[in-house]
């Protein structure tokens, strides 16, 4: 088991890298990856070190994006969720909400997901056992009864009830789908650095996002900003919760790296 340390960003991310020496596409999705990270490090699920996990998750997500997996967009959604929790952990909590841990919903989902994984394993074993028994290979075709001879027990009330329930349903798959390749984090990193090089007084996060009018750009810009912060290339500052997020260049650090 890995030792449980709570050092700052960079070291944790590296540790995450070591932990992820596995095929990335073996993860069925972000929940699976998250569960893996938590189990691997023997983390107490009721006290998740959210900063460490978020950093590790972001590192892994970068690789997943690089590997162009279909599910990259969903990993990004989870990354955004984690960042959101991390941000709320940093905020001073109002008295009234003292009991509410920002991680609560995540913990609930993790516990439920772990259980589902266990069931999936049981099903896999049951399937393997069942597959060892074979049915009769050849069975003579016999003419069945003519369908109109089959007594139908359905009543008009049932049909009418179904009629009342009819409405135009949106076709499946028209659900919002995140398209990972259109917004690249690298491009956002470049954009932030370019803009900052002309702005000694820093720039507002909002000004980077507004022109795009698309939540995915916001997520990617935030990820890029956090990444640059982790690399100590920029500084992030926020005067108060929910206030504007400002970014500043750290020239000295950048040249040395």
């Amino acid at each position, binding site marked *: 088991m890995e030792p449980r340390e709570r050092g700052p960003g960079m070291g944790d991310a590296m540790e995450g890298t070591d932990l992820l020496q596995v095929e990335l596409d073996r993860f069925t999705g972000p929940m699976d990856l998250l569960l893996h990270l938590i189990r691997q490090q023997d983390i107490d699920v009721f006290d998740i070190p959210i900063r460490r996990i978020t950093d590790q998750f972001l590192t892994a997500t970068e690789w997943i994006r690089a590997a162009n997996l279909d599910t990259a967009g969903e990993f990004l959604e989870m990354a955004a969720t984690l960042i959101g929790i991390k941000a709320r952990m940093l905020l001073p909590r109002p008295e009234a909400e003292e009991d509410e841990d920002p991680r609560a919903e995540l913990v609930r989902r993790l516990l439920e997901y772990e259980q589902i994984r266990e069931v999936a394993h049981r099903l896999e074993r049951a399937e393997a056992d069942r597959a060892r028994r074979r049915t009769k290979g050849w069975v003579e075709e*016999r003419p069945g009864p003519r*369908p109109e001879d089959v007594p139908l027990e359905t009543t008009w009330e049932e049909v009418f009830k179904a*009629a009342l329930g*009819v409405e*135009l349903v949106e076709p499946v798959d028209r659900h919002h789908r995140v398209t990972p390749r259109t917004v690249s984090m690298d491009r956002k990193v470049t954009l932030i650095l370019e803009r900052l090089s002309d702005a000694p007084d820093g720039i507002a996060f909002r000004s980077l996002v507004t022109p795009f009018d698309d939540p995915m750009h916001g997520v990617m810009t935030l990820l890029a900003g956090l990444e640059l912060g982790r690399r100590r290339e920029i500084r992030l500052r926020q005067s108060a919760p929910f206030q504007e997020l400002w970014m500043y260049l750290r020239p000295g650090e950048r040249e040395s790296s």
Partner: protein
Amino acid sequence: MKAEQIVEAVLFASDAPLRPDEIARADESLDEDVVEAAVAALRRYYLESERAFDLVELAGGWQILTRPEYASYLDRIDTIPRPSRLSGPALETLAIIAYRQPIGRVEVEYVRGVGSSGVIRTLQDRGLVEVTGRAETLGRPLLYGTTTHFLEHFGFDSLEDLPRPDELPVVLRDREVPILPEEADDEAGGQEELSLEDPE
């Protein structure tokens, strides 16, 4: 594992007759002679213990079959009609066809949001729905409507008797309401926003 048992398992599970040399591939311990001997032993055994099945030589190979004298029992299993009910999707599809006939498959699928050719087929097999014509639109798709059997079964004299109370969804209450968006193509995956306006 005895040769006899391996041969029995193989013949039971195979979906086609097998020659002795094919059966022998199941295990290194088998060859054609061993298989022939096992088949003979099994046949004798099935006969003596009065099994309902037998080994039969067919198309140059062997197959396990039920003895012919049981054919009449087997027929009854399938041909005695057992009462059945329509599934949820079938009820929904039947309701849409009943109220919007004549209607094409694409329109049904657009309303339901899922592919419906299987359900429509089931309703046709049951004699509740039939092809009533073709649309004049591109591709001249088949149009479906309900059958006389449908009216009989549900106790209606004619389609005019179908109740059309106000609580029915607009798309079923009023035949004039368009189902597909203006430039819908053949797939039910219409990209357009469909706005249903109340005709009143």
